[in-house]
């Protein structure tokens, strides 16, 4: 199976709060899990990514938590700011071989940070 399921579809958080977005996957061959941020009218921008050999990765206010046994991973946005208001997508990729690779995306989460 190639599906990646993302939740919630939308969330509202107060400025300074924590935004949490969850994703679940089925294909155990996936070995790369990026998160993308997309603003209206723009292409997705790579935010942070993790491999399954680590359980957590932090870059600034963004943290990925990864649970290999549960086949789940999540994005935490600490100290959320109004400028973080965007749609966030999780994705997953299988190992790239001679046939290349592709990203399988979740359905997206629209985050609104209220001032």
């Amino acid at each position, binding site marked *: 199976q190639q599906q990646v399921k*993302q939740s919630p579809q939308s969330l509202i958080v107060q400025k300074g709060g924590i935004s949490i977005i969850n994703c679940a996957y089925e294909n155990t061959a996936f070995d*790369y899990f*990026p998160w*993308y941020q997309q603003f209206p*009218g*723009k*292409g*997705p*921008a*790579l935010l942070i*990514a993790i491999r399954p050999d680590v359980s957590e990765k932090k870059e600034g206010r963004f943290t990925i938590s990864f649970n290999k046994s549960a086949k789940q991973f999540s994005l935490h946005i600490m100290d959320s700011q109004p400028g973080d208001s965007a749609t966030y*997508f999780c*994705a997953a*990729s299988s190992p*790239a071989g*001679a*046939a*290349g*690779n*592709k*990203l*399988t*995306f*979740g*359905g*997206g989460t629209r985050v609104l940070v209220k001032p």
Partner: protein
Amino acid sequence: DAGVTQSPTHLIKTRGQQVTLRCSPKSGHDTVSWYQQALGQGPQFIFQYYEEEERQRGNFPDRFSGHQFPNYSSELNVNALLLGDSALYLCASSSRGTGLYEQYFGPGTRLTVT
């Protein structure tokens, strides 16, 4: 260092027509992938090109075809346009030297089929 560029920005076509979208990859990248993003949904993989050949293809009909040029730029062609082809078409580039994992997206081409 220029990122991924795409042209045109917007396009309006009539059902049954053909369209060509263009993409220039990020400097240093040799692989181009195309994705279709319908309104309110995540991007869906169309195909990926490396060394001027289609390496992998998603679940899209043969009406969708592509090409990669020696300078690594790429074109996406869609024939016999349907209303359902209206979407944001995204190009992403990556490098085989870094394992293809990090894909960087362009701003997209918004295609409207009427």
